[in-house]
């Protein structure tokens, strides 16, 4: 056994850009997987010293504790506005936002749509788990019909709560966007595809192709009150119907 466990035999380890600070996310939360991918892509692109991340309000508010790049903490929903300014003022930097569904698709809808529509050379990473995790499991604009949350305890119904919002489909209509895609991170294959998407979006932003939106359909096992494995299953059976995966737009040529 000992001769297998040796530095030259490593085929996978936590990316160096992700530090050793224990992460506050719940056991099994999708955030951790996406954080790893973001760290890996920045490292592989050699952009560690030229990247600025904009973190949200939501479970990922402390994203800046875990990936060793420069960060700015934005007010709820405002990250695309910060990113707009940073990228225009420092055009050679890699600038991305990392936001949840409340941040990107509720309070921040205007900032999201307009930054994407202006074609700012940024990437919005949008983690959609159809619930407000950090504040205790309330309904999100992306909560599914029939899904129960603390503010729709009998299940979401259109008469009271309206319909789930497919903001990514809206974004794909915007001329300023060059890459709009929906991914997930619950299987090895999905994770590999999500990483490729992040890499493509980051490269497109550096090549000044316009704005990119990567929606990661994700789980919130705490909010959904399921185990991590059960949450993955529930997501596969229910979320992908409302939020189908794949590229909605790709004019990057990359």
């Amino acid at each position, binding site marked *: *056994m000992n*001769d*297998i*466990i*040796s530095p030259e*035999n*490593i*085929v*996978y*380890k*936590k*990316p160096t850009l*992700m530090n*050793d600070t*224990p*992460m506050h*996310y*719940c*056991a*099994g*939360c*999708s*955030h*951790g*997987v996406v954080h*790893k991918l973001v760290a890996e892509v920045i490292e592989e692109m050699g952009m560690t010293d030229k990247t600025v991340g904009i973190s949200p309000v939501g479970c990922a508010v402390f994203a800046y504790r875990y990936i060793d790049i420069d960060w700015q903490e934005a007010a709820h929903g405002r990250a695309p506005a910060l990113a707009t300014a940073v990228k225009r003022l420092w055009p050679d930097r890699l600038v991305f936002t990392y936001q949840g569904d409340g941040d990107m698709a509720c309070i921040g809808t205007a900032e999201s749509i307009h930054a994407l529509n202006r074609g700012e050379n940024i990437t919005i990473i949008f983690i959609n788990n159809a619930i407000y995790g950090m504040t205790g499991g309330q309904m999100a604009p992306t909560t599914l019909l029939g899904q129960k949350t603390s503010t729709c305890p009998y299940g979401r119904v259109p008469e009271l709560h309206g319909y789930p919002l497919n903001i990514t489909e809206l974004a794909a209509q915007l001329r300023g966007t060059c890459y709009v895609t929906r991914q997930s*991170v*619950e*299987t*090895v294959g999905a*994770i*590999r595809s999500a990483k490729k998407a992040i890499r493509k979006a980051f490269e497109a932003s550096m090549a000044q192709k316009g704005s990119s939106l990567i929606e990661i359909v994700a789980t919130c*096992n705490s909010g959904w009150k399921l*185990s*991590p*494995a059960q949450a*993955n299953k529930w997501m596969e059976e229910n979320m992908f119907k409302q939020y189908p995966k794949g590229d909605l737009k790709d004019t990057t040529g990359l």
Partner: protein
Amino acid sequence: MGKFKGAIVVNTDRCKGCALCVEACPKGVIALAQKNVNIHGYPYVVAVNPDECIGCASCGIVCPDGCITVYKKRIED
């Protein structure tokens, strides 16, 4: 032909016992340790069938906390 043998090292202090690696492993290598918790109070995973490991790294890839380092070596037999 060369076969691969793998091995994993789990950072048990960082592990939160979410067991997604247990789900992902194609060879049944990993399981939650029984009656053990780490310093944070989380149950953690261990390689209970280390000889079965082929070093595919599925466990490492799906782990949300980056707890698992995966090794793989070609065995000339």
